């Protein structure tokens, strides 16, 4: 088991993105991120290597985020993304386009129904369909159907802007 610091270095961005896709308010998101880190730290002792560490952490981050948003009384806000992007290979114009695209994608994802949001986040995070089906404990056919609905909904939201 790698040390916690190593885990944060490897999977911190994944945790941050998942928190961002559930909570738009920066202050609440910071709170959520802390709760996810705490849950990961507490759960590491129970990790038996049945799945990859990335899968294990993503599952905790998703579940913690969902339980976090259920506690919020208000509707999710559509706030700006404060996180800056790597600008090494992009000129300011490209960076602005990409930032805008990412922001639109994040906002559209937040508007998806939870079962579809969960699937689309995992796909965007680069998990294979087999890993996602295992993580959500659903059949590959059911996953394909859910993903298809999620893609249609996401596409429609992105086209509407």
């Amino acid at each position, binding site marked *: 088991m790698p040390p916690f610091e190593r885990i944060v270095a490897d999977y911190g961005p994944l945790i941050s993105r998942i928190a961002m896709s559930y909570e738009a308010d920066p202050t609440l998101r910071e709170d959520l991120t802390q709760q996810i880190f705490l849950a990961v730290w507490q759960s590491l002792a129970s990790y038996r290597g049945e799945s990859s560490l990335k899968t294990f952490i993503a599952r905790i981050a998703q579940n913690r985020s969902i339980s976090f948003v259920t506690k919020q009384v208000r509707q999710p806000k559509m706030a700006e993304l404060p996180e800056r992007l790597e600008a090494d290979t992009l000129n300011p114009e490209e960076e602005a386009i990409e930032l805008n695209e990412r922001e639109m994608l994040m906002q559209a994802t937040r508007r998806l129904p939870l079962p579809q949001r969960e699937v689309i986040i995992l796909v965007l995070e680069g998990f294979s369909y087999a890993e996602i089906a295992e993580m959500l404990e659903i059949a590959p056919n059911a996953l394909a*159907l859910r993903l298809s609905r999620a893609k249609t909904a996401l596409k429609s939201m992105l*086209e509407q802007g």
Partner: protein
Amino acid sequence: MSDFDLDRLGDVWRQQPDPEEMQRLQRTAIAVARRARLSAILDVCAAIAVAAVVIFLVITNPQPKTVVMGSAAILVLLGSNIRLRKLRQVELKGLTGTTEEMLDQSIARVETTLRHHKFTLYGTPPVVLGSWLGFAAASAPRHDTILGGLREIPGFRPILFGAGIAAVVGLIIYLIISIRRGRRELNRLNAMRDAYRQERDSSAP
């Protein structure tokens, strides 16, 4: 963004945070882990300290009454620690399971809390009133006790009465707010679970 390519969207999505953001994440995570470690150590230290005090009191005053009280205190402490650990384990198990399992657990937890709050809400006024009446009837005014002395202070009784009423009203308000919040959370959890069930049923072969 008219073309819909999930691989390309994935590349956009997975943009790495800049080094400053990464450092902030690292700092947050390390602070969280440090606090959790410290809290675990403090829990153990507090339990050891309370147990040591109880044992010390029993040893220095080995009366049957002290032994019974001391044993009861240690049992309550142990029971409370075990309960807390079990609750934490259940919560962590929920976090590493599927979303539906986690939602089921959350619903059960909120329902239990709601029942507890309702019981306290309906039980508090009669218990407080009964205790107060019983206490007032049973305790004859005595001037040789600390309470008797305090009663002599002008305005003490109205202040005490007012503070008691304020505490009960405060508790009732807190419980009503908690129940309302709990109901809203329960509705949201049920709606989410229904959404998952609907999604599952509609994608069943």
